[in-house]
């Protein structure tokens, strides 16, 4: 019991994922700064931000709106992200506990943070937040099907293996999935899906800093906003880790393998950052069309190619 709690709360769950995610968030901001010929923030900046929000700032509740839901939503989001982090990272770090769960569990757990953002935004009673929430819903409707098909394609590639650890092992024995045509297509689809899941430009439609002034999160302040930030840090680590596990044969944490593991995650985050820096924000209609037509077509082609053994 104590061991399981340790796995969930410290390593590789909540704390570890949050710290690594914070460092990745620094990496993302630093690369953004470099792309714009700036110097960028110091290494510990994400943690200063987090600690400031957690310890210093006062938490305000909206005058109108459902206060309980407003406060509980970020906590639920953090739970969802933590559970997803544990189920993704335990097989990746080759730790075995009783229940491993198949990848569909991960798929559902990964949806929880976005859902709680919507809940919190609607509970805040702020018109800008509700516009943000309605956009977030539309965004989820558009990318979720693609993401599901992405999972299905991976399962198909792994000979119907539903377990994360089996998928990783299969790639370790043969070759990583990314080494085939369908694998490359799946990488493209997967990266765009997690870009939308992370709410990064061009899919930051729900936050839209310039038009909705942070949309869904406009009313959050202090400690609860710190929780939202922490959830985002965790997501910034586990979603790229998921891509690494599904397509790049996961981590092999011994000797030089550690360096490779770090490089793989950094490569995926770098890709996300470059996409976010070279694209303007899409309108919600364009984003829906992008996923419902473009990405779905791509993932279906990938599935067909997988059937043909390519």
């Amino acid at each position: 019991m104590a061991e399981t709690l340790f796995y969930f709360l410290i390593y590789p769950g909540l704390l570890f994922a949050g710290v690594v995610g914070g460092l990745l968030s620094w990496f993302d901001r630093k690369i953004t700064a470099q792309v714009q010929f700036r110097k960028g923030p110091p290494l510990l900046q994400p943690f200063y931000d987090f600690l400031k929000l957690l310890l210093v700032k006062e938490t305000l509740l909206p005058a109108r709106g459902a206060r309980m839901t407003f406060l509980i939503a970020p906590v639920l989001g953090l739970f969802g992200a933590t559970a997803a982090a544990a189920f993704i990272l335990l097989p990746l770090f080759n730790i075995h506990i009783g229940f491993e769960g198949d990848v569909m569990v991960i798929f559902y757990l990964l949806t929880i943070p976005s859902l709680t953002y919507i809940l919190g935004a609607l509970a805040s009673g702020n018109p800008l937040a509700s516009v943000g929430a309605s956009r977030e819903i539309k965004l989820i409707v558009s990318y979720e099907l693609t993401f599901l098909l992405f999972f299905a394609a991976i399962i198909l590639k792994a000979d119907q293996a539903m377990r994360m650890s089996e998928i990783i092992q299969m790639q370790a024995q043969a070759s990583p999935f990314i080494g085939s045509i369908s694998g490359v297509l799946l990488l493209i689809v997967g990266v765009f899906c997690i870009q939308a899941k992370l709410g990064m430009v061009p899919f930051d439609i729900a936050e839209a800093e310039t038009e909705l002034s942070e949309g869904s999160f406009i009313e959050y302040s202090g400690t609860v906003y710190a929780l939202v930030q922490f959830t985002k840090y965790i997501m910034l680590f586990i979603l790229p880790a998921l891509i690494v596990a599904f397509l790049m044969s996961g981590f092999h944490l011994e000797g030089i393998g550690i360096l490779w593991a770090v490089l793989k995650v950094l490569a995926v985050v770098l890709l996300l950052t470059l996409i976010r820096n070279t694209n303007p924000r899409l309108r919600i209609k364009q984003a829906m069309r992008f996923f419902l037509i473009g990405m779905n077509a791509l993932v279906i082609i990938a599935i067909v190619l997988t059937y043909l053994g390519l």
Partner: protein
Amino acid sequence: MGLKSFCLKKSLWVFHLAGASCNNCDIEILDVLTPRYDVERFGIKLVGSPRHADVILVSGSINQRDKPRLLEVYNQASKPVYVVAFGACGITGGIFAEGNTFAGPVDQIIPVDAYIPGCPPKPEAMISGLSKLMQTI
């Protein structure tokens, strides 16, 4: 220096409130985010919601219509929050001080922690003002 004030100092999020300015100050504020001055290296970033703000940067003179809005933003911000009066207009009213809608310089409406003079202040002046503000935290 405690951990709390250290973290606060290292991560000042700025909410920009433009009163009835001639718009030159507002453009000058965006200058400090450019590659040449880049205040992100001090952890400063612009935020869109007063709820997230640690610093309220008020540029332009405050007229009768702006006054309730300024008070509203100040009350909505989660404390501790610092107020910076930016430019001649923010500090004294500047060229608008004699207008019939003028509602008083910022420091007569809400408490001000730092003044950055100039018309408009140079980006260097703004960085120096913010670093002096950081030293007081």
